């Protein structure tokens, strides 16, 4: 942290206001106060110790008083941190409850629209059919967003269910590529799976969760490729791991944004120029899933040149 950043951090009143906390409940302010009291205690002890050595009783009393003040301050800090932790827990619970509550009306919408689009009870043509498609697409989008929020709340509560088992990673990848092929070719984007080595060992992890990660990588690559382009997907064995990667020639991630890329709700400034859709949850979820599966996740990116996102996953039986 640079000196300037420290100074900015010290703008305590603004920081506490931003968190919506009063000064006496704000950890930043309380820490500063405690630091000051500790310094004062040390100075006073030194001052008194060198001058009033003849009366150790007075010295002890003053030091005792200062210690009590310190104790009270530490207690307040602990309480304020407890308050923040509780607020965080409530926020996660809130997301979880709201998402669950939204799911029921959304299921109703989804199924009713499915009936209308399917022409089961009569055909709908022309403009009304176009509007129906808009309703249907956006209901799907909302459903995906709610699913992402639910996954995030589970991650934050430490309740993301991971069921590890042996599975063929290449099959999962081929399935995901097939899903994205139509939408990619509509934008003149080609998705290529690099030749997979024969006898590729089975992976060990939660295939249904890892599919979310694979889809997220490919989805991002398609989303952030401007105009025609090529996306290269690869699986290679690396010691006791399988390395999966997705390389695109898209907009890339600016250097200053790279350290935030796996943060919850973070969206890079340059992608907002091209793509307003997106929740900023995909890579946060991806990181949690990969790490819970015993793998690693990372990327290499250069602005306007493209990105390569990768993860590793243990090989079964190793």
């Amino acid at each position: 942290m640079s000196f300037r950043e420290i100074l900015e951090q010290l703008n305590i009143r603004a920081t506490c206001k931003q968190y919506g906390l009063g000064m006496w409940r704000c950890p930043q302010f309380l820490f500063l106060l405690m630091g000051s009291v500790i310094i004062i205690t040390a100075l006073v002890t030194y001052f008194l110790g060198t001058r009033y050595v003849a009366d150790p009783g007075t010295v002890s009393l003053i030091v005792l008083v200062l210690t009590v003040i310190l104790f009270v301050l530490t207690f307040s800090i602990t309480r304020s941190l407890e308050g923040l932790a509780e607020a965080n827990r409530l926020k996660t619970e809130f997301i979880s409850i709201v998402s669950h509550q939204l799911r029921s009306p959304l299921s109703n919408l989804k199924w009713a629209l499915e009936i209308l689009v399917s022409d089961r009870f009569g055909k709908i043509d022309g403009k009304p059919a176009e509007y129906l498609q808009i309703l249907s697409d956006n209901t799907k989008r909302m459903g995906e967003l709610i699913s992402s929020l639910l996954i995030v709340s589970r991650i934050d509560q430490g309740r993301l269910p991971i069921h590890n088992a042996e599975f063929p990673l290449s099959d999962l990848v081929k399935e995901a590529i097939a899903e994205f092929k139509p939408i990619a070719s509509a934008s003149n984007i080609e998705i290529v799976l690099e030749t997979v080595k024969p006898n590729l060992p089975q992976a060990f992890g939660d295939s249904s969760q890892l599919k979310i990660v694979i889809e997220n990588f490919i989805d991002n690559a398609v989303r952030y490729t401007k105009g025609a382009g090529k996306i290269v997907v690869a699986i290679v064995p690396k010691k006791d791991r399988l390395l999966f990667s997705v390389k695109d020639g898209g907009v890339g991630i600016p250097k200053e944004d790279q350290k935030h890329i796996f943060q919850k709700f973070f969206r890079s400034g340059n992608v907002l120029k091209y793509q307003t859709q997106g929740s900023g949850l995909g890579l946060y979820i991806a990181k949690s899933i990969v790490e819970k599966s015993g793998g690693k996740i990372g990327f290499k990116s250069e602005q306007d040149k493209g990105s390569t996102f990768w993860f590793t996953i243990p090989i079964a039986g190793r």
Partner: protein
Amino acid sequence: MVYHTNSGPLSGPIYRAISSLLKNNNFMSKKILFIEDEAALQKTLGDVLEQEGYKVIKALDGEAGLKAAQTGIPDLILLDLILPKMHGFEVLKALKGDTATKDIPIIVLTNLESMGDIEKALELGATTYLIKASYTLEEVVGKIKKALGE
């Protein structure tokens, strides 16, 4: 209701001719009990099932659902879990504990998706556990047909 297993005098080509004649008739069509407190969902899935030729009996709460199952003996039960008056798990337990209803296939259709709920439902004897948000209507109809052995 047992026309499809009938092997008495009404068997062979005559039986098949009669049963195909009656298949599209409410009298002979299979009966599905749909226990669900969301009226909108009962309407959508209910309408589609009726169009597929099933007779759909609807119950809006757990108690009414259990009573309907015991008096009408359906061929299949669609059961939501969060229900007024009686929770879906209690309905499931009561149905599986009653000799008259214990063999009816039960599909749990809910938005609860914790592993605990899924395991509990299957332990209590549910045939299938479906999370509404994860399936299209057509997929649900497919699962119902499969559970009915069609």
